[in-house]
């Protein structure tokens, strides 16, 4: 079965600095999709960024970018110019066609001023 591992339960960063959240996954499939979700205390899961495994180019969404290493099965999230509003729980998730998301255990990110 596919698994997603987030090895950092907690991370902290200062405003305007850069932080990287780690994620590794295990799969024998070659075609899949990877996501980062943000969950603030309000509980609503918000999609941050997504990556198709067949694309070599790393996805970027404004201050958020990923480092996708398919051979290493690694999918890290980089947040640049961190803001107070970035404080939340971040989940890495894996998906194949027609299936639901498989989530990691999450990383709690705190941002200090």
């Amino acid at each position, binding site marked *: 079965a596919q698994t997603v591992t987030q090895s950092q339960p907690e991370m902290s960063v200062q405003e305007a600095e850069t932080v990287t959240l780690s994620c590794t996954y295990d799969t024998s499939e070659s075609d899949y999709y990877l996501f980062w979700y943000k969950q603030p205390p309000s509980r609503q899961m918000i999609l941050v960024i*997504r990556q198709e495994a067949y694309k070599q180019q790393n996805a970027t969404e404004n201050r958020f970018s990923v480092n996708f290493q398919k051979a290493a099965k690694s999918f890290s999230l980089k947040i640049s110019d961190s803001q107070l509003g970035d404080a939340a729980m971040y989940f890495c998730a894996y998906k194949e066609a027609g299936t639901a998301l498989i*989530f990691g255990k999450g990383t709690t990110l705190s941002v200090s001023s």
Partner: protein
Amino acid sequence: EAGVAQSPRYKIIEKRQSVAFWCNPISGHATLYWYQQILGQGPKLLIQFQNNGVVDDSQLPKDRFSAERLKGVDSTLKIQPAKLEDSAVYLCASSQTGTLQPQHFGDGTRLSIL
């Protein structure tokens, strides 16, 4: 567009009681998911619907949990009887058909079992 609506937002019951959660997905979204999120963990799929048919319920504890999606729109998730380990947030999500269609999540229902 209106988001995924869930109710109630909070529910407290005693063990062995029953409880039901309701989800109204985004209009036009054929796929609906129910996830269970235990405190400190990531969400885990309970059941996935495509229209009113079940796609995946392999992780649904069928001896106590049931779910339905009548007419392929609203869905209800029921627990009967509840156990202490069912304390969690129950998230509903919906998406259009297609792997890269994003899943839109509701605010969830926080269930506490006494």
